[in-house]
């Protein structure tokens, strides 16, 4: 995905065991933060004719 120009931080992978609630919340925070920095995704989005493409 990166290769075609999608920003690295649009895709996240992690391993969290079912006991690692803290890690889950931490990773969730990091992911949300990184994506916020990127701003809305404009790549790969299918623009439907009926939708506002603004």
């Amino acid at each position, binding site marked *: 995905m990166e290769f075609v120009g999608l920003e690295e931080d649009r895709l996240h992978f992690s391993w969290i065991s079912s006991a690692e*609630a803290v890690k889950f919340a931490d990773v969730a925070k990091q992911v949300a933060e990184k994506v916020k920095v990127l701003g809305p995704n404009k790549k790969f989005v299918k623009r439907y004719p009926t939708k506002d493409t603004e």
Partner: protein
Amino acid sequence: MTLSEVTSISGEAGNFEVEVLKKPRYVDMNKCIACGACVEKCPKKVDNDYNAGLNKRKAIYVEYDQAVPLKFAIDAENCIKLTKGKCGLCEKTCPTGAINYDDKPETVKLNVGSVVLAPGFKAFDPSVFDTYQYTKFPNVVTALEFERLLSASGPTLGHLVKQSKDHEEPKKVAFFQCIGSRDINRCDNGYCSSVCCMYAIKEAVIAKEHSGGDLDCAIFYMDMRTHGKDFERYYEKAKDDGVRFVRSRVHTINPVPETNDLEVRYVDDQGKIQTEVFNMIVLSVGLEIDGSTIELAKTLNIELTPGNFAQTGTFTPVQTSRKGIVASGAFLGPRDIPQSMVDASAAAGVAGEGLAPVRGTMLKEVQTTPERDVFGEAPRIGVFVCHCGINIGGVVDVPSVAEYAKTLPFVEYTADNMFSCSQDTQDKMTQIIKEQNLNRIVVAACTPKTHEPLFQETLMAAGLNKYMFEMVNIRNQDSWVHKESPEKATEKAMDLVRMGVAKVALQNPLAEAQLQVGQTAMIVGGGLSGMAAAETLALQGYETHIIEKSDRLGGNALKLYKTPKGEVIGDKVAELVESINSNDKIKVHLNTTIENVDGFVGNFKARLKENGEEAFLDHGIAVMATGGKAYTPDEYMYGNDPRVLTTLEMDEKMKSDDSLVKDADCAVFIQCVGSREPERPYCSRVCCTHSVDNALELKRRKPDMNVFILYRDIRTYGEKEYLYKEARDAGVIFVRYDLENKPKVSVDNGNLKIVVKDHVLNRDLEIEPDVISLATAIVPNTVNDLAQFYKLPMNDDGFFIEAHAKLGPSEFATDGVFLAGIAHYPKPIEEAIAQGKAAASRAITLLARKEIFTSGQVAKVDPVLCSSCGICVNVCPYSAPSFKTEGPFAGKAEINPVLCKGCGLCVASCRSGAIHHNGFDNDQIFSQIFAVNA
């Protein structure tokens, strides 16, 4: 039965009367929904035992978040209401009225046939040692405390900090091994606790991982005992990762003035005194039996060992001295998780042996409602949104969510419930489903992980297929985690409900396939573990076949002399063979090999070659007890001089009292021959004990014989440690060598000569032995074809890979196939027998069901779309897909629903889109994705 204690057991095997004291919980288990509201309100803080007292919990509590049952309890000793009669806040807060301050202890009497004792151990309390000043210095912690500090669910959320007031991150951590183990000077525990070396390495590695690697970890030890499966590799890797291993027992710790640091003085390998400063010291405390367990053993009239563990026989490893009472876990001796799992299964198997005649006699039938056929009906979805008291309702605007759900496609009915899981609401839901003629249900509430089965029962009660259901998680993953933004949480709840509705609309009723389990067992290998498995299976009433490639039962045990406990192995094996041969449920196939195996769990078919003739054997389950053999060494003059023997050859000579042994004045044992070498990087587990025992026997026979053991680490784990001490006391001389400086064996003037570097004296030592015994590695038998027939994985060393290294040591990921003995890993007799019984016991859990119901949520091939590329066959870890061999779609893949675990790996891998995943099909997941944005 929780909070309960056994007070007495009377009667005899097959008919025990057990008296149990059930202590009050003060919380009604049927009403508690584990929402945790009570904990927030409870004003009383108590030391948290679960976190080794490192933080606090409340007087109403659940020990840890994954506890089973997940129900709260009141700690009566600390509860203000119960001790002083005031407070009562939890009762006021509880949304379901589960608190009952008037709960009373009760005595329950049980009539049982067998008893399993699994009382566990307690960690050694190092407060008694003044040397380590555990109570005085905050930065001296036990390994258990350290473990909690490293844990993500621990008091520091996995962040490693010093326990002194500064709470800084440590830079240097020392681990002291054998605290409360292998020590009869300052405590009474002469045994080795068996697990501490490995857990110390693990903690050191994890601590380094947590702190990014620059943390210095040093482990101070006497012998490094990594004798478990794959443990030696872990040890080597830890060395590579920079964990330091220092062979020394530390005797002095001094505080460094003005700091919270600690100075350690020790004698190094070269005999020099060293000092080093550490920020934290971890005491690798041993395992010991709790006083209350010793009391219980006395009450039950169970004999204990010198270490206070349950006394058992080598050939009856879980049987206590009282018939009908078996034991498992650390009560049998200090042990790790996989060994405890083996014991647990073995104990269950042996306990079941006595119960076989009455199995299934006390079952009750369950009433079921016939399922309504909804085929061809348009979706009529009912959405129930739960308040969960204030748990959801306090954050999410539940009525609005329910209102919103009405606007979604195919939704015919919505409602909001106070507690969807309560019995009256369940009844109401059943009624509504019937009245409204709903055919698909969405419940937006807590989590499917705990409540899906409950709601599925409601569906079934209403005559719906239980898979026509989707649970939307608006509590654990919404209201509880977004408390500060109720609007956003409500918005999220609506999104999630929309996604759930979109998914369930595409759901079809799923059938659960039913499969008969063939009631015959096949055991591959007629060694000790195979025979032990056969015995348990047969005693529990199952027809059992032992397939043995040689012309006799007994395997490697036939070559052994005696056990460390003094039992003559030959006699014991003969007894076991006799009991196998005389059991009419067991059929022994000697001189037999397996040529091919078809089928799957419950329905295997083997093609055998028995004495050269073809035969077929249908079996429901199979046990791999294929064993191993001694490695043939090519070093230390083996094969070039008749006085250089392997351990097994030594046993033969000792059995026959051969002149080579009888006339010897000097004997040398060389350890780790072929083990713990780069090409065989594992410990063979049994050799240290075996050599020490043989050395002792030589000393007993001829006290003035010079007996040497050349070793790298002596690994006489558990109570085998007593032998090591006894051998030293008897004058056996132990000389340590390194892998880099192996002993050199030569013949000089017809005399054997060994040169080895003595570490203590730091010079070469020359010995002229009359006989040399090489402790050769144990290597697994080659069973590649069997592995292929049953699709079983093997590791680089050729041992089978079990289903789970810790929790499933005696079974395979492939259903219906079990594992025992040396084929799993080198092990001594008692462990091989225990695992044989464990494999049988695991097999019986399957056999006893007679038929298996599969999950409906499995993968299914559409043969028209299948391109036969075979990727599904190749990726599946459970061997569920295969190619059809006949019919119109021959050559296309099909998936056996019995073997499918529903993981979806094949579905995702299929390029042709030919595999459907019932319950998680592509269209359903796409529909959820499409529904993310309204």
